[in-house]
C-alpha cells in the first residue's frame, strides 16, 4: 500500500514537472528579479545597479516633486477607470441580458453579435475606434446627421482633454460588457421560473419583479462582474497605449502605462527601478482586491 502511494506521488510530481519548471523559471525568477530591481537605480544598459533601498517607492509615492504628482495623476485616472468600467458593465450588461432572456427569436444570433467586441479585443479594434473617433471620423458625421451637432468634437473625441478619458472608458467597457451579458444571462437562466411566476401571480409588475426579486438573486453575479472589471481596469493599459499613449497632456495616463513607459521608453534615463516599484504597488492593490474577492465568495456560500 505504501509503495503504491509512493509510486503515485512520484507520478504526480512527474506530471506537474513541466508546469512547475516553467513556473519556476518564468514566475519565481521574474518575481525575484523584479523585487530586487525595485530597490535599485538602473537604466537597462550600464553594468551595475545602484542600490537605493526603498527610495524608488518613496519617490513615486510622495517624495519626488516631479515623479509623485505624475503617479498620483495617473492613479486618479486609474481610479476613474475602475469606477467607470464596472458601473457601465453592470448598467448596460444587466438590461441587455434581461431583454435577451425574454426573447426566443434571434436570441442566439444576437448573443453572437454582442460577443464580438470581447473576442476581438486588441490592437485592430482599437485602431478601428481611433478611426471612428478622429475629427473627420464617422462618429462626428453621424452626430451631425442626427441633428446632434452640439455633441460633435471638432478636435476628435481623443484629442479633446475633457472627452479623451471618458471616451476610453466607454471603449474599454464596450469590450467588457459582453462578458457581463454572458454571466447575467447564465445566472438568469438558472433562476427558478416558479419564483418569478409566483411573484407575477401576486400582481407584481415587471419592474417590481426585476428590482425586488431578480436583482437580489443576481447579487453574486453582479459581484463577479464588478470584481472582474475592477481587476481589468486596474491592470489593463493596452488600450491607453494604443489609442492615446497617455495624451492629450497626460489626461489619459494610467498607472500601468506609466510603469510601461518607465520600463521600456526611458531613453537611457535610470527609471527601470521606478517601473518595478510601481509594478509592485499595483501588485499590492491587486492582492487587496483579490482578498475582497475571496471574502465575498466565502460570504456567498
Amino acid at each position: 500500500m505504501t509503495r503504491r502511494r509512493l509510486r503515485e506521488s512520484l507520478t504526480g510530481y512527474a506530471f506537474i514537472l513541466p508546469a512547475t519548471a516553467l513556473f519556476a523559471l518564468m514566475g519565481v525568477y521574474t518575481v525575484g528579479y523584479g523585487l530586487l530591481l525595485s530597490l535599485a537605480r538602473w537604466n537597462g544598459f550600464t553594468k551595475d545597479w545602484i542600490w537605493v533601498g526603498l527610495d524608488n517607492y518613496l519617490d513615486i509615492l510622495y517624495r519626488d516633486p516631479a515623479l509623485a504628482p505624475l503617479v498620483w495623476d495617473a492613479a486618479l485616472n486609474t481610479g476613474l477607470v475602475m469606477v467607470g468600467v464596472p458601473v457601465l458593465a453592470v448598467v448596460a450588461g444587466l438590461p441587455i441580458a434581461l431583454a435577451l432572456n425574454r426573447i426566443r427569436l434571434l436570441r442566439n444570433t444576437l448573443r453572437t453579435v454582442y460577443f464580438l467586441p470581447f473576442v476581438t479585443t486588441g490592437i485592430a479594434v482599437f485602431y478601428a475606434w481611433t478611426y471612428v473617433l478622429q475629427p473627420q471620423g464617422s462618429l462626428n458625421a453621424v452626430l451631425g446627421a442626427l441633428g446632434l451637432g452640439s455633441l460633435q468634437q471638432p478636435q476628435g473625441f481623443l484629442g479633446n482633454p475633457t472627452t479623451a478619458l471618458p471616451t476610453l472608458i466607454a471603449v474599454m467597457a464596450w469590450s467588457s460588457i459582453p462578458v457581463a451579458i454572458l454571466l447575467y444571462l447564465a445566472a438568469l437562466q438558472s433562476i427558478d421560473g416558479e419564483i418569478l411566476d409566483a411573484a407575477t401571480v401576486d400582481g407584481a409588475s415587471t419592474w417590481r419583479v426585476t428590482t425586488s426579486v431578480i436583482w437580489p438573486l443576481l447579487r453574486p453575479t453582479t459581484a463577479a462582474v464588478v470584481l472582474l472589471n475592477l481587476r481589468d481596469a486596474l491592470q489593463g493599459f493596452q488600450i491607453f497605449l494604443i489609442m492615446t499613449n497617455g495624451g492629450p497632456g497626460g489626461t489619459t495616463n494610467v498607472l500601468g502605462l506609466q510603469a510601461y513607459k518607465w520600463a521600456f521608453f526611458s531613453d537611457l534615463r535610470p527609471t527601470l527601478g521606478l517601473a518595478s516599484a510601481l509594478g509592485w504597488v499595483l501588485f499590492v492593490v491587486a492582492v487587496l482586491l483579490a482578498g475582497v474577492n475571496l471574502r465575498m465568495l466565502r460570504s456567498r456560500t
Partner: protein
Amino acid sequence: MRARVGTYVLLAAYAVVSLYPFAWMVSGAFKSNREVLAGGGLVPADPTFDTFAKTWTELDFPRYFLNSLIVTGATVVGVLIVYTLAAYAFAVLSFPGRKAIYAGFISLLFVPGITVLLPVVLLQQELGVLGTHLGIVLPFVNGTAPLSILLLTNAFRAVPASLRESARCDGAGELRTFASIYVPVCRPALITVGLLTAVPTWNEYVLSRVSLNDPSTYTLPLGLQSLTAMTSPEYNVIMAASLIIVLPVIVLFIFLQRYFVNGLVGAIKG
C-alpha cells in the same frame, strides 16, 4: 406587445453599438485613400479591392500572418501539453503538497502583467531568446497557467473514478489512462482552453512590442502598429490590416462559440 417592441428596440440598438467599429473597419478597408481622407459615408462611393491587395502583398503581411500562426500555434500546443499533464495530477493523483501547489498556480491570476513584464524581458535577454518567437511563447504559455489549470482540473475531476479503476484493472499505466481515457473524454474542455489561449495570443501586443525588434519576426499586431508609424496614417490601409487580424478570430468564434461560452462561465464560477 409594447413591452416586446421595447425589448427588441433595446437589443437592436445594442447590436448596432457592438458592430459599429467593425462596420467602419470594413468600409475603410474598401475605400481609396482619397475617400478615406475625405470622410464620407459607410458605403464606399467607389469600392476598391486594391487597398486589401496592396496591404497583403506589399507590406509583408503574409510573413506577419505566418509568424502569428507560428506563435499562436506553438503557444496552444505548449499549453495543452503542459497543463493537461499538470491538471491530471491535480485532479486524479494524490501526492504531498498537491493542494498548496495548485493554489500557488491559481493565485497567479492576481499578478498584474505589468509587474512581471520588465523582468520577463530581462530574463529573455539572459536566456538568449530575446527577439525570438520562443522568447515570447514561454511567457505566453506560463501566463495561461492559472486559467488552464483551473478549467482542465475541473474537467478531469468530473470524469467518473470507475473509468480509471477499470483502466487500472486492465493493467494500464498512469500515462496510458491519461492519454487514452481522460484526454478523449475531456475533449470539449481542451478545445475551450485552446481557444481561450489562441485568441488572446493572436491579439497580443504589449509584450511582443518590447520583445521582438526585427521586422522579419513581427506578428500581425506589430505589423499593424508599424503601419501607423509612417508619416501620415493611411486609414484605408490600417483598416485593411485590422480586418486581416480580426477576420480569423471572428470565423473561429462563430464556429466554436459554445466552447468559449462554457469556458468563460466555468472559469468564473470555478
